[in-house]
C-alpha cells in the first residue's frame, strides 16, 4: 500500500480529512508531528508521498507558511531533497502550498534549489475568504495529481492565495513547461477567471496550483480533501452534481505508484 506521510503540528489543522482522503484513495497515511520528524528525519524515506496540509502554521504570522517553512528548511532540507530525487511525490494544500513556495519546492524550474521564487500574497479582497470555486485543469501539464481531470468544484479557505511570480520571465517559463496545472475558472464559460469572486484572490493568470517540471511536486490553494462526500458540494441539495470530487487528486497520486 502506498505510504503517505502527513506532517502535523504548530497550527496545521487539516490532518483528519487529509488522512481520510488518502484512505479513501487506497493509501496508508501516517500523521507525524514536525518535531518527531525532526527528531528522526529518516522517517521520511519510509514513505512515498509527503503531504504538507492546510492550516495556520504559526498563525500565519510573518506571512503564511513562512515560519514553518523556515523550520523545515533548517532541519530537514537534505532529507527533503533526497526524498524528491528518489522519485517520490510531494503534495501541498493551502497552507501546505504556501509552505512549499516558501521552501522553494515550487516551481523549482531549475531543479530543487530551496530558493523562493514565487509568493502567495494577501488576497485582493483584503480578507480571508471561504467560498467554492470552479477549477479547470491543463491537460498537457506533467502534474501527476491532476492527470485526466478537466474541471472540479472545490472550496477555497485562505487569506493569502494570490500568486505573485518574481518576474515575467519566470511566469512565461512556468506556462511553457505547463507547470500551472490548475486555474480558477468561470463556470459559465470554463475560461480562466479574471474577476472576483470566480477568481477569489486576484491570482495572476488565475493560478490556483503549481507543479514543478517533473510533475511530482504539486501545491494548490483549494482543498480537495474538503470534498470527499457528495453532500459537501454546496448545491448537492439540488440533485446530482457535475464533475469529480476531490478524491480524484489523491487517487491519481496513488495510481502513480501502481
Amino acid at each position: 500500500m502506498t505510504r503517505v506521510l502527513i506532517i502535523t503540528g504548530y497550527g496545521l489543522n487539516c490532518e483528519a480529512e487529509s488522512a481520510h482522503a488518502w484512505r479513501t484513495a487506497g493509501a496508508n497515511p501516517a500523521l507525524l508531528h514536525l518535531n518527531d520528524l525532526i527528531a528522526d528525519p529518516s522517517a521520511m524515506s519510509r514513505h512515498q508521498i509527503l503531504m504538507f496540509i492546510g492550516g495556520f502554521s504559526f498563525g500565519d504570522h510573518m506571512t503564511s507558511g513562512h515560519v514553518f517553512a523556515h523550520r523545515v528548511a533548517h532541519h530537514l532540507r537534505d532529507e527533503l531533497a533526497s526524498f524528491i530525487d528518489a522519485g517520490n511525490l510531494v503534495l501541498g494544500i493551502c497552507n501546505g502550498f504556501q509552505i512549499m513556495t516558501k521552501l522553494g519546492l515550487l516551481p523549482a524550474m531549475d531543479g530543487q534549489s530551496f530558493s523562493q521564487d514565487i509568493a502567495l500574497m494577501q488576497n485582493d479582497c483584503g480578507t480571508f475568504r471561504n467560498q467554492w470555486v470552479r477549477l479547470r485543469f491543463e491537460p498537457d501539464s506533467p502534474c501527476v495529481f491532476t492527470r485526466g481531470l478537466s474541471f472540479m468544484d472545490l472550496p477555497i479557505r485562505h487569506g493569502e492565495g494570490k500568486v505573485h511570480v518574481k518576474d515575467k520571465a519566470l511566469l512565461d517559463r512556468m506556462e511553457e513547461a505547463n507547470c500551472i496545472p490548475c486555474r480558477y475558472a468561470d463556470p459559465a464559460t470554463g475560461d480562466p477567471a479574471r474577476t472576483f469572486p470566480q477568481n477569489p484572490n486576484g491570482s495572476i493568470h488565475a493560478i490556483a496550483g503549481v507543479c514543478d517540471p517533473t510533475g511530482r511536486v504539486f501545491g494548490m490553494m483549494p482543498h480537495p480533501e474538503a470534498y470527499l462526500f457528495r453532500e459537501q458540494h454546496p448545491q448537492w441539495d439540488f440533485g446530482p452534481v457535475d464533475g469529480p470530487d476531490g478524491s480524484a487528486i489523491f487517487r491519481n497520486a496513488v495510481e502513480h505508484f501502481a
Partner: protein
Amino acid sequence: MATRIEIGPKNNVRDPRGRHAASAARTFLQLPVTDCRTRDVYKVDILLTRKDAEMIRKAFTDPVTSRSALGRLKAPADFDWIVEIGFKPGVTDNVGRTAQSIAADLLDRRLNPDECVYTCIQYFFKGENLTREQVETITWDVLANRLIQTAQIHTRDEWEDAPEDDSVPVFRDNEDVEVRTYHLGGRDEDLMRISREGILSLSLAEMHAIRDYFRRPDILERRASLKLPEDPTDVELECIAQTWSEHCKHKIFAADVRYRDGEGNEETIRSLYKTYIQAATRSVAEKVDWLVSVFTDNAGVIRFNDRYNLVYKVETHNSPSALDPYGGAMTGIVGVNRDPMGTGIGSELLFNSWGYCLGSPFFDGHLPEGLMHPRRIRDGVHQGVIDGGNQSGIPWVRGFEKFDDRFIGKPLVFCGTLGRMPREINGKPSHEKEIRPGDLIMMAGGRIGKDGIHGATFSSEELRQESPAQAVQIGDPITQRKLYEFLMEARDLGLYRTLTDNGAGGLSSSIGEMCRMSGGAVLDLDKAPLKYPGLQPWEIFLSEAQERMSIAVAPDKREAFLALAARRDVEACDIGTFTDSGNLVLRYGGKACGCIDLEFLHDGCPRMTIEAEWTPPSPPPPTPRPSGALTGDVLKLLASLDVCSREDKSRCYDAEVKGLSVVKPFVGRESDIPSDATVCRIDYTSDEGVVISEGINPYYSDLDTYWMTASVLDEAVRRIISAGGKPGTIAGLDNFCWPDPVASDKTPDGAYKMAQLVRSNKALYDFCTAYGVPLISGKDSMKNDSTRGGRKISIPPTLLFSAIGKIDDVAKAVTMPFKRAGDDILVIGETSAELGASAYVRMRAFDQGTPEAIGGDVPRVDAETALRIYTALYDAIQNGRIRSSHTPTLGGLAVGFTLAALGGNLGAEINLGAIPTRGRMKADEVLFAESNSRFIVTCDPGNTADVLARFDGLPIAVVGRVVEEPKLTVGSQAVRLRLDRARKAFRETLRSVS
C-alpha cells in the same frame, strides 16, 4: 538594546494593510488621506552579533515580496506623517512570539524568558493638510486601542530628526513580593470601601460572612498552625471574591425572588436556576435516555450514538469585547473552546458558533464619551472570532447578528463550541472526572501575566469609565492549538486523570473547582511560570492569562506527561498536589499565604433576596397601514438590518475545515441565502449527522419576556425540524444576557427587570418540558449596562437559545431554497395577527418617527399543535416527500417566500387568501406576522395529497407554486417583486461596512 528590523513590501507590490487604513480614514472619518504604506517592525531583544542579526533579518523577510533592513528601512518617497504602533508592556504579542521561534532555530538554542521579540507596525500617511489632530484621530479611531497599544506620531521632519527607536515594552515595576492582609473588624463603610477599592464586587452581607468566617475559633486555630495571620490575606480575599462573583456564582439565579405578577398574586421562588432550569431538565430526563452529564461539568454532555458523546457550550464575552473588541472576542472564542476541551477527560473540538448583538454600524447619534462606535466594535469582534476560529482549525456552523442601538453600551458576544468524545477512552467513560489525593496539579499552555486580572469580578460590574485595562486579554490561538493537540495525545495515552480550563478567575477558579473532587489542594504559587517578574502571589492566583489548562496527573505519570509536553513544545509544570484536607492551601516560597475551607468557599456565600414585580407594558402600535401594494415594504425589510445578508463578513470565517459539512450556513444556487439550520457529520465513517440551530429575539422582550422565551425556543427547535432533524433528539442551551435586575439607586426599575427574568425562566420551564427539550448547559451575564458620559444604557433582555438535534441520515437533510418549477408551495402552521415588536412593525414605527410604537400582540406558542406539526413534518421529510422547507422568522411569510425563491433562483406565485390564518386578517398582517411554528415547504405535485394527509387536522394549505420566471407574486396585487431587485436589496446593506 534591541536590534531593530524593518520589513516593507517592495515598491511594485501591493500593500493591502496600507490601502485598508487609507480607505478607512477616508470612508469612516472623512479625512483627506491619499495614500498609506506600511512596515512591520521587529525589535529583537536578544544580544546578537552583527552576523546573527543579519541572518535573522534575512530569515524574517520574504525575498519575493519584501525588502528589509537592520535599523531603518528607506522610507517611502512621499509621505507626510508616520505612526508607529506597538503593544503596551505585558500585552500578548503573538507575532513577536512566533518570530522568537525563528530566532531560536537560527541560534540553535532555547531562548531565555527575557529574550523576546516585540513587534510594531508603521503607517506612512500621505494627505494634503493632514493635521496632527487628524492623524491622532486615525490612530485611535481606526488603527489602535489605547488600552493595549502605544503610538508614536511624527511628521516627516520630526521622524527624520528622531533617533532610531530601539526601546522595548517590558514591565519595569519589579515590586517586592508582598502578601497583604485586610482588617475586617471595622465599620460597614470600611468593609464596603475594601470591597470597592479592591474591585472585589462583594456586597455588605458577603463581607459580613467573610468577616465572621475569619473569626471562627476553628479557623483561627488552623491559621495559627499554618503561621497565617488572623486577618485574611489578599490571596484569600481575592479568591473568595472571585469565587463568589456573579460571573462564577450566578447569585441572581440562585437568589430568593419575591415575584408579584401584576394581578395580585405573589410567590417566593427559591433559585430561578433550581426551580426552572434544573427542574425542566430533570423532568425531561425521565423521558429521554441520552443525557450523559448535565449541570456538573464545564459543558453538557449527551450521547450521540454508540461510539460518541457530544459536548456543547456557549459563552458570552461582553465586557472584554466592549473594551477591546478584537482581543475580547478572540478570547471569547478560544476561551469557549477550552470548555469542551476541559469537559470529562477532554473533548475533541468540532464546530464553533458565534452571534453578536450590536448597535447599528450606521449609528449616527450621540455616542457617550468612552464608547467605541458600533461599526468599530463590529469589525473588531468579527475579526477576533475569525482569527481565533480559523487559526484554531475549527469551522463555524452558526452565526447571527442582531442590531439595536441599546447594544451600543455593551455589545453581546456569544461564542459556542461543540465537541466530540469517544464514549469510552482506555476502557473508562470519558465524561467522568476523578481526582485522587496525592495527584499532582499541573498547569500547561501559556504563561501567567497580569492579563485579565479581575475579569470575573469586573464582568459582574457594569461598564464604567474606570473599567480596568487589565481586564483585557488577547488570545493566542496557536499556543492553544499546540496545547490542545498535546492534551488529546496525552488523553489517549492515559497520561492524566482529568483536566479543566483556566478561564475567569484563572487558577483560583480551576483549582478551587478541581480540588472539590479530592477534597483539598496545596498550591505553590511561586512554581507557576510567569511572563515577566513582579507578579504578586494573588495576581498569579487570579490571572486570566489565556491558553492554560489545569490538569490532575497521577504521580507515576509525571515524567511521561512532562516529556510529551516538551516534545510538543508545550510548557507544562507541576505546581502542587491535590489533598483531602478539606482546605485549599496556597503557598509562596514554601510559606503559607492562604488557607480557605472548601465548604465555606463554595457554599458560604449568603443568598440574596430580590424583588420582582411585573407590570405588562403596553406600547401603542404604529398607525395602521393604508391598503395597497406591499412590494416596497418587502424590499425594505429585505434591506433592513433585521433581515439583510450577513454573507460578506461570514465568508471570512472558515466553514469547512475538518470536511464534515452537509448543510452549510449559506445555501442556494448562489450559496448566498442563510440556511435554517446547519447539518454536519461528526465523523467520516457514519452518515449520522448533527443539526445545529439557534433562536434569539431581544425585540419581543419589550412586550413580554415570557413569549420572547417561548418564541426563541420554538425558533431553535423548528429550525432543526425544518432541516430534517428528529424530534425527541433535541437539546438546548440557555444563555441569558440581562441588564442589572437588582433594584438600587442606579437601577430604579430593577423589580421590573427581575420580573422579566422570572417570566423568561417560567417560559423556559414550560416549553422545555412541553417540547421534551432538556437544557444541557447555559450561562448568564447579568450586568449589561453602561453608564458612560452620565448616561445609562441598558441592553434589552436577551436570551440566546442554542439547540442541537440529530438526523439519522444526512442525505435526507432538506434545505430552504425552492428546488423545481412546478412544485407546490404549502404553508404549514397558523398565521395570527401577531405583529407586536415584529420587524415590520418596528420598521413602520421608526419610519413614522415614533420608534417606541411597537405595540401589538407578541407571537405566542401553542406547544401541543407545534409538536404535532413537527412530528408530521419529520415523517414527511423522512419519506422523501419534501423538496424544500423553510421556517419563517423576522419579516414573516413575505421574507420567507422571497428568501426561498432567491435560494432557488426560481419565482413563486402565491394565493394570499389560501394561507391558513386565525380569523380575517389584512394582507400586511398575513405577510409580515411573525407567528411561531410555521413552515414554507414545497413538494412534487404528485406528493401533495400524501403530504396533506400527513397533516390531517393541522393547519396546512397549498398556497401556490414555484415558477420558472424569477419573480415573486403574492395575491392579485399585494406583492410583485423581481428576484434581481430582491437580491440586490438583500445583499447591499452591509456591503459598505464589510
